[in-house]
């Protein structure tokens, strides 16, 4: 498979300006991120709030320049060829962003038609009005909003959350991108509509080959969309575990991934009543300014010792990588299905 985007040793440092009494503070938001995105796939980026997943999304879409490291698109370093204005526009055309809050992402005083037309008219100057109209209709059909006329002349507040999310998807698709970064696209819409938006994304991926980076904190939806693809688990600005989705969910190796998976409620009363003790020391994520050079998960990990205070390397095991120095100490994860079988037998 061909690599579409490569993140090489990306670091991102935010600074908090000092005052008379306080010195300037630095927050290492992303630390040595290496990640390849291949053509035709869906990658789910998972982590709790504050783990840097949205920052990765912003870096990939070119909204934010990393402090150090290379972002490569089809092998070319973006920030060396981007000096030329036109090429930067090209890159931004190929990589689109779908935001979490569909209400905030659409201009409230513009109709849907106006919102959707703007990018098309900017990037396809040769199209006449009729062709633009045809394109709009095509897009609306693609995201399942038919008949298009019923929606195009409405304002954002007249549509439901699910419909607005589809409009955002249509807007992202209007420039025929190769990659769409979707930042929590379903977390703000009604439960009964979530699945249909996720389905739309995986259909677009299969039919048109659009690559998706799906950013979420919800492993259950990530499992659904990245089914035959990859999951990347992040913690405090580092990638802790990366690999095939089903493998990670059924056999997580990293203690953090194990805790994350055990915490998810199962919508079935048979499983729910099993008492699951979370394999973790404290519930709250440590703050960024207290991190050590070693494993970021150290303060919350049940298996940690002094070794973890030193920088940790990735361990590669059956087609995945894990950042943990005590893999042999961490017990094998018991998937919930097995847990229930054991419980029933006992």
């Amino acid at each position: 498979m061909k690599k579409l985007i490569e993140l090489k040793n990306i670091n991102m440092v935010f600074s908090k300006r000092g005052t008379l009494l306080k010195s300037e503070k630095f927050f290492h938001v992303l630390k040595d991120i290496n990640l390849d995105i291949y053509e035709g796939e869906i990658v789910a980026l998972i982590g709790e709030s504050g783990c840097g997943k949205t920052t990765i999304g912003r870096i990939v879409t070119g909204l934010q320049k990393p402090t150090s490291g290379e972002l490569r698109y089809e092998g070319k370093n973006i920030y060396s060829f981007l000096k030329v204005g036109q090429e930067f526009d090209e890159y931004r055309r190929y990589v689109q962003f779908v935001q979490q809050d569909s209400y905030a992402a659409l201009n409230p005083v513009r109709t849907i038609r106006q919102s959707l037309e703007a990018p098309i008219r900017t990037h396809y100057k040769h199209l006449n009005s009729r062709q633009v109209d045809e394109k709009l209709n095509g897009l609306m059909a693609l995201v399942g909003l038919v008949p298009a006329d019923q929606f195009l002349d409405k304002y954002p507040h007249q549509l439901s959350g699910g419909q607005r999310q589809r409009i955002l998807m249509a807007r992202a698709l209007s420039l025929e991108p190769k990659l769409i970064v979707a930042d929590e696209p379903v977390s703000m819409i009604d439960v009964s509509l979530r699945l249909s938006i996720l389905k739309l994304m995986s259909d677009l991926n299969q039919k048109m080959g659009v690559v998706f980076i799906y950013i979420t904190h919800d492993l259950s939806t990530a499992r659904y969309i990245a089914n035959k693809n990859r999951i990347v688990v992040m913690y405090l600005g580092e990638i802790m575990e990366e690999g095939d989705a089903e493998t990670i969910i059924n056999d997580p190796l990293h203690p953090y991934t194990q805790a994350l998976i055990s915490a998810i409620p199962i919508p079935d009363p048979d499983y729910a009543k099993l008492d699951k003790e979370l394999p973790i020391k404290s519930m709250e994520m440590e703050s960024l300014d207290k991190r050590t050079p070693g494993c970021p998960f150290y303060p919350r990990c049940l298996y940690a010792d002094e070794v973890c205070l030193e920088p940790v390397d990735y361990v590669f095991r059956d087609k995945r990588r894990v950042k943990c120095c005590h893999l042999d100490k961490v017990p094998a994860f018991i998937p919930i299905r097995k847990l229930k079988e054991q419980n029933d037998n006992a």
Partner: protein
Amino acid sequence: MENIIELKKVTIDYNLKKYSLRAVSEVSLPIKKGKVTALVGESGSGKTTLATSILEVISSPGVVDSGEIIYFGDKVPFDITKLSEHELNAFRWKDVSMVFQGAQSALNPIMTVYEQFEETYRVHHHRLPKAKLVKQAKKKTIELLNFVNLDPDRIMPMYPHELSGGMKQRVMIAFSLLLNPKLIILDEPTTALDVIVQGYIFKILKRINVEMGISMLLLTHDIGVVAEFADYVAVMYGGKLMEYGTTRQVFKEKLHPYAKGLIESTPSLLSDIDQMKPIKGSPPDIRNLPHGCVFHPRCDFCMDICKTIEPVDHMLGDHLVKCHLVEEVDAR
């Protein structure tokens, strides 16, 4: 089993200038004593409106149009809707308290955690001499913060902005317990929180429910949380109660197509990915509810009768299902 509260045919209208909106229509719902009842519904289904009617704090211009809300927590049961403003002030928080959605904005930003606890305590114990009151309030605050695993010495002098989301939510839970209520209403208590913190909060809530015997009404749209935490489930759609039963009845018997659809369309770690299918269409506009059964435009089992006649509440034992399909089962 005993009820702590019983809602009887409660109808709530929002009287706007030009027309009025019926947010909740004729909902009858028991809330069992010492149990956790989950009220499930999407946004606009009327679940928050219904829950706030128990405290008579429906956001303006909403009013209870008809129906009774009977409270059984005192020696003599009484109807909450008939209480005067003065009686309501004594009732709120002491008998029923609420953890509001978004703990972030529920705490006063310019008061420390302890000041907020003391203020509420003072208002409800205004006859006590000051020294005694402060002593009692402090003792209670320390006890409750310990119960939700927060360090009182550290938390009490803090302002809300110094706390993380999970800590704020735990402060709110401790706060709701301040006057030893008999029922706590939890409005989406973990929506803005991460899964690990969510799991932890529910652990604490379960302890409160079991150890203190406090009844709970949990408002949520998260099916996973319901299965794990609730004893009884009430499903609302378009301002109407569609199904009510024990968690097992609702999840296993799957009698109502809406509840069934919700359960089957929720991605989980166990579900078979290829078998999942979304509920078609989108939630109804309460200004313009469909005729007949409110769910019929989205229902896979829709029959002709569903389009014209609204189904009645069918009771299968203690399991309520508002659907014409159940009628057919009855007839056979």
